[in-house]
């Protein structure tokens, strides 16, 4: 299923590309279905990335590279030593500094035209609606289910698509939630798994793989290219390189999205 976030009658409102844009994005504009129009859609887009850790940092970096116009980052706290095996937007010199401040500096070093809005807070029930309101697409990379469920409720309320991505040890999973059309996160699991622990086994290469796939999913949603993971969950086990695309279905009794047409 292809999900276009803008209708054709909105195309006139897209920002134009200049020579600077063309000099940087020329090679990706050669990709089938992108061209000048696709690049303008990327330039017009605003994406909220919840957490800029191993997954979210990679998502943000790839979207910055692709020319997404605005990225909103939400992540509390300061860089710690234990972040550095996977959080590629962070730096050793930045240990002790604000994660989102360092992330913004790294993103602007790659793409100085990027509009980066930072929030030194994690998503929660009280700020999720406000943060989601700022974006056209949301990417959920949080380590806590409470954050994921808060974000899920907000995107369902505001009918905004969300790329839901996660990893654990050598495994990763990815799906795209389109409220009213696909299962929401609560359809899949109304409560957090009992065994989930805040600290989890993680390699940066696994987080980065999931982050790159999530970024590609966002690019497809924005440009309308290809086939998204709406209604499907991509799971992967990088210890065996086994990938599986699984069909997921709405829970008709879901307390979050059952009234979402």
């Amino acid at each position, binding site marked *: 299923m292809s999900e276009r976030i803008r209708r054709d009658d909105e195309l006139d409102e897209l920002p134009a590309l200049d020579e600077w844009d063309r000099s940087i994005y020329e090679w990706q504009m050669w990709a089938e279905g992108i061209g000048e129009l696709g690049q303008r859609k990327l330039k017009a887009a605003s994406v909220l990335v919840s957490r800029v850790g191993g997954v979210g940092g990679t998502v943000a970096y790839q979207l910055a590279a692709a020319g997404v116009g605005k990225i909103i980052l939400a992540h509390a706290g300061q860089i710690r030593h234990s972040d550095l095996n996977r959080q590629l937007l962070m730096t050793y010199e930045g240990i002790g500094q604000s994660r989102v401040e360092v992330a913004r500096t790294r993103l602007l070093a790659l793409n100085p035209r990027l509009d980066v809005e930072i929030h030194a807070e994690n998503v929660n029930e009280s700020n999720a609606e406000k943060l989601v309101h700022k974006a056209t697409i949301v990417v959920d990379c949080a*380590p806590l289910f409470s954050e994921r469920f808060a974000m899920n409720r907000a995107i369902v309320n505001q009918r905004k698509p969300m790329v839901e991505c996660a990893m654990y040890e050598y495994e990763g999973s990815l799906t795209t939630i389109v409220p009213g059309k696909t299962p929401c996160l609560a359809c899949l699991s109304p409560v957090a798994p009992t065994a989930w622990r805040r600290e989890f086994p993680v390699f940066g290469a696994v987080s980065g793989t999931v982050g790159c796939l999530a970024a590609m999913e966002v690019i497809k949603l924005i440009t309308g290219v290809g086939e998204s993971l709406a209604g499907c969950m991509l799971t992967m086990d990088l210890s065996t390189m086994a990938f599986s695309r699984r069909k997921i279905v709405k829970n008709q009794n879901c307390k979050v999205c059952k009234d979402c047409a």
Partner: protein
Amino acid sequence: MLIHIKFESQVRRLAGCEGTSVDVLASDSLEQIVCEVAKAGTESLRSALLDEQESLRSSILIFFDCELVSKEQKLVLQDGSELTLTTLISGG
């Protein structure tokens, strides 16, 4: 008939193995099958799969033939069929 159970993510870690096999009847419900798996497994696997009333937890995802299925669903299982038991994951 013998069906195979594959564990993924934290369920695999709690089970301490990649999977198991279980002998079931064609009339067994999905919940009955998972209960059998839980009771034959480690205590941590059991508590991850079943709640205090010995019912399947709502956080457990069951996949059959690459499709998410609900515990109420009646599946046509055959000898050698495989079910995958897992949960959502949340790491970044």
